[in-house]
């Protein structure tokens, strides 16, 4: 079926509609919204106390003084509001219940449809950053870098988001074969939190471990934008850092496309 689909003219309107519908859907879960913001504040308090205690009795690392690591943690938690969402969960669900078959009949690109739906969900959650940030500022000081650094951070954040999107997409694609991925996914989420530098900056890791974690794609999700924000990656290193992120976006996007094609083909083989 997929092989014989006629090429259609690309229209943006259906994807915008998908994204806005996803935003409306998310808005109905008000209690989860309160929980998300509360979670940021509770964790921020915890991290502030943990780092303050560790810095109080030990020699602080030259790269990251206490105020920088608290800024790092706060920005990481706010990023998490957006990054920790599995935007392509719908892919797994629809594979699971078989409704994916009707998606193939719709006059849109199916992966782009999931991207639009996921982006709508993410944009809604991004709106939570504002109240979470305001409340965070009540009990921690967050350093504000120069406008140029902020701009590069924003760009790096978008690239990190795309890396995360593809990792989730690949995991959900594996449902074409296994039909059950939630276990693996939760494990990957916990590993990403740690190996991506969301909880502890990767530059704090023991040197031998740094050699490993910095070459994994997870570092491109959280660590790179955050290290740009706090200035551990200086302006001279920006281009290289963004370049590595871009390479990951392309590599993971390529893998995801291949998996998607193989999976979609397989659905045809199964006959539905």
């Amino acid at each position, binding site marked *: 079926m997929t092989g014989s689909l006629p090429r259609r003219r690309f229209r943006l309107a259906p994807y915008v509609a998908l994204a806005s519908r996803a935003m409306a859907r998310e808005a109905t879960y008000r209690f989860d919204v309160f929980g998300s913001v509360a*979670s940021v504040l509770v964790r921020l308090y*915890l991290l502030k*106390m943990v780092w303050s205690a560790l810095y109080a009795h030990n020699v602080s690392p030259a790269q990251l003084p206490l105020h920088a690591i608290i800024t790092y943690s706060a920005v990481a938690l706010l990023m998490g509001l957006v990054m920790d969402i599995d935007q392509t969960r719908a892919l797994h669900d629809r594979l699971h219940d078989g409704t994916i078959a009707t998606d193939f009949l719709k006059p849109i690109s199916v992966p782009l449809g999931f991207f639009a739906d996921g982006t709508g969900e993410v944009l809604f959650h991004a709106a939570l950053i504002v109240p979470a940030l305001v409340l965070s500022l009540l009990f921690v000081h967050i350093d504000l870098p120069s406008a140029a650094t902020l701009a590069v951070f924003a760009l790096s954040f978008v690239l990190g988001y795309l890396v995360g999107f593809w990792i989730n997409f690949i995991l959900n694609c594996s449902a074409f074969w296994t039909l059950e991925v939630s276990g693996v996914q939760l*494990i990957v989420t916990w590993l990403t939190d740690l190996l991506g530098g969301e909880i502890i900056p990767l530059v704090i890791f023991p040197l031998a471990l740094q050699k490993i974690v910095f070459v994994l794609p997870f570092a491109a999700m959280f660590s790179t934008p955050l290290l740009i924000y706090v200035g551990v990656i200086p302006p001279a290193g920006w281009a290289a850092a963004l370049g590595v992120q871009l390479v990951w976006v392309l590599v993971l996007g390529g893998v995801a496309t291949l998996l998607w094609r193989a999976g979609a083909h397989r659905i045809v083989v199964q006959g539905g």
Partner: protein
Amino acid sequence: MGTGRMLRVYREYWRINILTTLEYRANFLVWFAFTFVYHGSALAALWIMLARFPSMNGWDFRQMAFLYALWMVAHALHNTFFSSVSDVPDHVRDGEFDRLLVRPLDTLFQTIATPGQVFPDELILALATFVAACIYSGVRIDLVFVLFVPLIAIGGALIDLAMNLAISTTAIWFVRVDALRWIVAQLEQEFTRYPLGIYSRAVRILLTFVCPFAFINYFPATYFLGKTDGALGLPPVVGLLTPAIGIVFVALAYAFWRFGLDRYQSVGH
């Protein structure tokens, strides 16, 4: 209701759980991997922090590993035997709770003995981790240790149960209690990883007297490791009070539960 009959029902409940576990062996392995990665990454995070900064409020990594393992045993005990108490809000919401009320068995007992897929994976892992942490931390193992550790683990599980039950009871009035449950879960699971003294005074008091999670692991570990309590200046021996604290808080939570049951109005289905 006779205790004998309750015991028979409870034994039957566990028989069903074990049969289910044996039926879904692959699931058991997946859950085991889950639990392993969850606790493994938590311990790894502590190790990474304390590799860079050798101590936290006078606690080194070995002592914090013992702190974590002690919490893990109590937490796993609670999850294995009482986790279905947290399903009460769901039952209230979908009306299932009304069915429990009309049956001729204690409602809380029925809630605890609702068959599900209860795997003892976390408990097995917790016991193994605890043994390893005892050896690794070099804690002095004497008669008091051997006698009190099982009681403290049970007391810790009762503290968890008390908070779980109290939150579930609030669902009788508020129906949706996810955010509250989430915040208390953070206090129980993440705040207990660190020595109490790192927090501000209000939080230390909260974790000692209101949601007494510090009695699950901080106070007992302070006693067994021969440290002094730098948080509230209490004598270390209060660490042996955990079983009593567990019983008192479960009794309070149970009274609250009964109070709630008397005022229960169905969501109406």
